[in-house]
């Protein structure tokens, strides 16, 4: 079966490198499923989980602030942060979630609210991924 080379790079260094049969991710315009020989594509990703499938197994990766760049045999995910479930600090994510919820309940200025919302999304995403 054909495979895709997937590399995930972050400013702190490459996070993952490997070949997979399918990559699914959530772009800002909707779910994307990428199989080998996909047309070249660039799309921004939401704060979400990227799913990498290989031999019936699925690996998850929590990404923040990411982009996917697709070429026929290669998928590159550029993200500001990308974590595998084993690397996620669940306690920290839970604390971040509580903090963000508190801040959102205070209903401060718009900008703060937006930031809190993003922080909440990141925390929830991490917790979700770590439970998979």
């Amino acid at each position, binding site marked *: 079966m054909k495979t895709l080379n997937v590399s995930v790079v972050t*400013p702190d*260094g490459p996070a993952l490198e490997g070949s997979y049969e399918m990559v699914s991710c959530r772009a800002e315009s909707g779910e*994307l499923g990428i199989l080998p020989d996909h047309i070249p594509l660039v799309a921004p990703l939401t704060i979400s989980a990227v799913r990498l499938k290989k031999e019936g197994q699925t690996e998850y990766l929590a990404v923040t602030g990411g*982009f996917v760049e697709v070429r026929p045999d290669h998928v590159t995910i550029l993200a*500001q942060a990308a974590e595998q479930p084993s690397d996620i600090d669940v306690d920290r994510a839970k604390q971040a979630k509580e903090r963000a919820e508190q801040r959102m309940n205070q209903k401060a200025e718009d900008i703060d609210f937006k930031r809190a919302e993003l922080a909440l999304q990141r925390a929830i995403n991490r917790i979700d991924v770590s439970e998979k």
Partner: protein
Amino acid sequence: MASLRDIKNRINSTKSTQKITKAMEMVSASKLNKAEENAKAFVPYMDKIQDVVTNIAGGNTGADHPMLQSRPVKKTGYIVITSDRGLAGPYNSNVLRALNQKVQNNHSSTDEYTVVPLGKVGRDFCKKNGMPIAKEVTGLPDQPDFAEIKEIASYAVNLFSDEEIDELHIFYNHFISAISQKVTDKKVLPLTDIETEGKKLSSYEYEPDEEQILKTLLPQYAESIVYGALLDGKASEHASRMTAMRSATDNADELIDDLTLSYNRARQAAITQEITEIVGGAAALE
């Protein structure tokens, strides 16, 4: 001539200073290794994001974005990367001198520019010279990760997108090698000098469209330029401190040699004097 004990004291204190400088040299050397690794780990990300930006902005796709356009410069923002601590040789003074020169050459009043200093030394310099500080960051770790710099980077980028500033420059020491660093003034925004020549442009489908992508991609690109400069600056800082400490250790060696020589001379003089006195005393008895 200084007494024997004075010289001995000086030798001892120089030796203990030398121990400290030697330890600092070794610490900086290991930090430099790490900093270089960090800078290396960042390269693939930067390359890739640059690729995509070049492809979209350089291709004749008709996509446009405020960050790609230069507008009349009413106010300039400067990010200055310095260290929190001194003892790094000319590391800080070089950057700050470059900043000072730039400011004096280009601006006649403090309304025309604003500074975002990173590091205590830079902050103190700006305060002392009455430069307007937009936001300051101190206490950055030796191995910063992206999350820590993101806030300040996006703050600076937002200043630009809110048209608070019309140009964003970054001053830092570019790491060339362990013994050589060069002060660099880099224009971060607007992104007018994206090089497209000589590069193979591949055509992509854009999802949803180019402009949406530029909207999210360009701020990230600018932030990564800032982060890259910080990593570069950190490597330079450690290299510079290592070199400074090495020459301090060497100087201490030299000083100890000189002092030991004069210690021995003084000791010899004292012995000679004692002998003369004994001989004189014995001669008086005869």
